[in-house]
């Protein structure tokens, strides 16, 4: 009975996102019909949360097959891993959709609004298909649909040539990644004879070692492109900031996680680990992405691009956990592998919550001030108290401070690094504990970055007229952000609710993994710490104190202006100076007139961070392809006789091939 009702509910989720809501939206002429469709999207995602929750916390399983209607096997299923990611998608979507209900209405006219919603609905459907697919074809259909629909959503806010170029880069890199994913699926075919996941899983044990390596590397590159690990991240800071804020929230918070899902599915479920260098590859990729991601983020003052770079950083932290887990698997330490995998998966969930919260916050800021340039903001906390407080909770979470959810997953990652010292291999004994330092540096830089973000945008004095006249976001936007902020706090203080089911999830993926002790201990201590901190804070509030407004000390000046405050660029200067070898800024200083440099009339200074990847990594590659294309152009003479000759030669070659093959 329960199985049937879950299937019905899941079918309703798919049908309403895939058919009902888009059709109603496209046909809608009035705002009320549109509101109905939006309610349908939100409602079906709430249903999705319940379905996912039943499978994640409970023991329910679910399988839906559409193979009768499709030319290739197309089936969906929910095991624990899929349920976890379905929960992530649906749980983040509900608040984001509430936010978008207010946001899209204010930013687009009716026509564009309904297309935005219809695309969003399909976007959600595609992500759900990806994480619940149980055949290779279903996975790839969802994967491709996700790329295309999200590209459409990016173009929602206009199609200037720069925007088109960015979307082009996005599509290009996504398809290169998708090609790698397709290849890694097809390499299983000779051993599994079908692409359904059960068959692939069974084949995973018999695939020869060489093919395993190729499959692993292809999956790593393919999913890594989607996840945005450095140096495959090039599309991420281009595509995310130009999308509408709720869409950025979904792309950064949820879409990147489908790549994590895919990688976990391949590395842990299909291949069940591998030699320990698999783990080190992932570990190094994670460390590089984490460090460079946060260093690039700190140099930004465009809030949305800054957040996009932080996605690179957090994906790096997730990959640190995954790599550690693979190292433990290769060293036959299943319990520790489970610990690291739990850390990575929890960080995936946490990142989905706080990153979408922060992107929604950026949306609320741009809604109120029409800019996301930090240098134009300031003093928003007093003008937008609810947005500001929710944003602050997001900042504390992403930095990984205790009592917020980011801390739990980072702590688990730290502990799994520390546990590396008990392994037999000396390499692991050295590398894993040293990673503590790397993650600590990442955390410290993230803290500096978010002090800057919150301090410059929300505190102090407003730096522009727009910021001065900002008003609080409308109710639905506040509601969406508050829900996400509450979720961050809830997981931060009571992590047990997610950790226990995650432990049983990893027991499915990693045979022989018990429940790591760390999971129990953190769930026990955090409430104590929360109690002490709240208690002491309340005690200090007991002092009756007289408060008086007094102007900020101005060094003897009668009045301070907002231009005397530290800016975002000034704040990050020390860190940029110390890490200047990473940025390699391109500085140009023009003084006019040029022949009289000591008494210039005007000075213009420009400092652009050179994206060294483009120069060193992508440029040669692109040049090679272009020159190859030039060579190939000689074949295209435009003469019909030559083309007929080509056809004839091809035919002869094929016949000869067939003749000699036997």
């Amino acid at each position, binding site marked *: 009975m329960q199985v049937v009702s879950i299937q019905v509910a899941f079918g309703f989720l798919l049908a309403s996102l895939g058919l009902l809501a888009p059709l109603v939206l496209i046909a809608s002429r009035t705002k009320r019909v549109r509101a109905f469709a939006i309610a349908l999207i939100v409602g079906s995602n709430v249903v999705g949360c319940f379905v996912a929750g039943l499978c994640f916390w409970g023991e329910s399983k679910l399988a839906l097959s559409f193979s009768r209607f499709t030319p290739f096997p197309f089936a969906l299923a929910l095991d624990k891993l899929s349920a976890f990611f379905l929960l992530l998608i649906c749980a983040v979507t509900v608040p984001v959709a509430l936010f978008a209900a207010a946001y899209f209405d204010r930013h687009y006219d009716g026509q564009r609004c309904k297309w935005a919603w219809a695309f969003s609905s399909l976007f959600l459907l595609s992500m759900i298909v990806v994480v619940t697919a149980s055949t290779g074809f279903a996975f790839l259909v969802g994967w491709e649909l996700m790329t295309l629909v999200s590209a459409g959503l990016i173009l929602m806010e206009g199609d200037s040539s720069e925007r088109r170029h960015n979307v082009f880069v996005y599509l290009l890199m996504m398809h290169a990644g998708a090609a790698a994913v397709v290849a890694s699926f097809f390499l299983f075919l000779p051993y599994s004879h079908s692409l359904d996941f059960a068959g692939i899983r069974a084949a995973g044990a018999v695939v020869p070692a060489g093919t395993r390596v190729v499959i692993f590397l292809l999956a790593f590159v393919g999913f890594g492109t989607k996840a945005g690990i450095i140096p495959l991240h090039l599309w991420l800071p281009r595509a995310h900031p130009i999308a509408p804020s709720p869409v950025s929230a979904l792309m950064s918070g949820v879409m990147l996680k489908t790549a994590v899902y895919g990688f976990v599915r391949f590395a842990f479920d299909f291949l069940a680990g591998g030699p320990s260098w698999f783990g080190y590859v992932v570990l190094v990729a994670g460390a590089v992405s984490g460090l460079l991601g946060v260093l690039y983020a700190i140099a930004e003052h465009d809030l949305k691009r800054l957040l996009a770079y932080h996605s690179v950083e957090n994906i790096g932290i997730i990959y640190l956990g995954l790599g550690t887990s693979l190292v433990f698997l290769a060293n036959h330490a299943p319990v520790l592998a489970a610990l690291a995998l739990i850390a990575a998966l929890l960080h995936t969930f946490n990142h989905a919550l706080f990153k979408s919260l922060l992107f929604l916050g950026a949306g609320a800021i741009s809604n109120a001030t029409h800019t996301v340039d930090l240098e134009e903001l300031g003093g928003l906390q007093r003008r937008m108290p609810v947005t500001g407080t929710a944003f602050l909770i997001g900042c504390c979470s992403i930095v990984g401070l205790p009592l917020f959810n980011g801390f739990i997953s980072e702590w688990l990652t730290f502990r799994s690094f520390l546990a590396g010292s008990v392994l037999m291999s000396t390499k692991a004994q050295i590398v894993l504990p040293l990673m503590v330092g790397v993650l600590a540096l990442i955390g410290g830089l993230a*803290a500096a970055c978010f002090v800057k973000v919150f301090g410059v945008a929300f505190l102090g004095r407003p730096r522009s007229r727009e910021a001065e006249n900002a008003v609080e976001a409308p109710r639905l936007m506040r509601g969406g952000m508050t829900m996400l902020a509450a979720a961050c706090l809830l997981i931060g203080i009571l992590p047990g609710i997610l950790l226990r089911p995650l432990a049983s999830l990893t027991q499915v993926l990693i045979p022989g993994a018990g429940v790591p002790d760390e999971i129990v201990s953190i769930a026990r201590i955090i409430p104590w710490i929360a109690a002490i*901190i709240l208690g002491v804070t309340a005690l200090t509030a007991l002092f009756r104190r007289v408060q008086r407004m007094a102007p900020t000390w101005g060094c003897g000046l009668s009045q301070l202006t907002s231009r005397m405050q530290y800016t975002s660029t000034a704040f990050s200067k020390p860190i940029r100076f110390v890490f200047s070898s990473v940025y390699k800024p391109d500085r140009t200083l023009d003084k006019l007139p040029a022949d009289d440099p000591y008494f210039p009339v005007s000075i213009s200074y420009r400092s652009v961070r050179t994206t060294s990847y483009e120069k060193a990594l992508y440029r040669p590659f692109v040049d090679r392809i272009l020159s190859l294309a030039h060579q190939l152009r000689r074949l295209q003479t435009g003469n019909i006789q030559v083309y007929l000759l080509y056809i004839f030669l091809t035919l002869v070659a094929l016949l000869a091939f067939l003749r000699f093959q036997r």
Partner: protein
Amino acid sequence: MTTAINVLQALLLILGAPLVTGIVGKIKAAIQRRQGASIWRPYAEIAKLFRKEDLVPPSASWVFRFAPKVLFATAVCAVAFVPVLQPSALLGSRGDFFFLVYLLALGRFFLSLGALDGGSAFGGMGASRDALISTLAEAPFLLGLVAVSIMSAHADIPGIVMWTLQRNVFDISAVHILAFTSLAMVVLAETGRMPVDNPTTHLELTMIHEGMVLEYSGPSLALVEWASAIKLHAMLALLISLFGPWGMASTVSVWGIAAALLLYLAKLTALMILLALVESVVAKLRMYLVPDFLGVASAVSALAVIFTTLVKR
């Protein structure tokens, strides 16, 4: 009984903290051939500040008023992880050193925000410089602790202390020496002492911590000052318990605790004299030399971690 002593040592760390700053100041004065203020002056100062009114800039939000409270609360909470008289602490056996480090980070995060909320250039200057220093100090801090934790195969601080207690003083390895060096350097940076920051300066060009708290007054300032004092005391106590715990009462008895207290005070005094000496002898580093200082600390702590694989455990 154990819990009672745990509470007692936490109170010792919290209530004795201003005395530590007072004594360090007195020793520094003695080294510089000055008479110096009374060692009890920090108490009088905090009491005076608590009686004064709180001045709040007109641009400030609740974050400004909230920050000192959070800073104080996290410092108090961090104290609950540090063993002093016996190898146990209030939260010590439940949590590990990561909590200690990150609780301090939470307080610092809010203090930096409070500094930016004042809307003056000095707050931003202090917060920006502090961000650099604390960013770079975090890695050696954790790596130093990781090294001793690997040696003892314990992640909780009382566990590490217990392990060290069972060793002989002369058994300490290179790992401990390296870890102590890096942690001692980190303590100087974290608590804003010379040569990283000058706690007595009020010159715009040089102040870091003082720049951040410039806008605070009255009870808020009292909480900030007290919290920094607690942080200093807790860090010194941490160094003592990790690298020289001998003399702690491993079994609970009145005489044992009394002896442990006396020994602790002796070790603390030694450390305070060392700190005062360093502060009097060493000149403050130029701002952009601080990363080199912390880089050395990082390298030393990384070496400590690497050496754990070589040393017989």
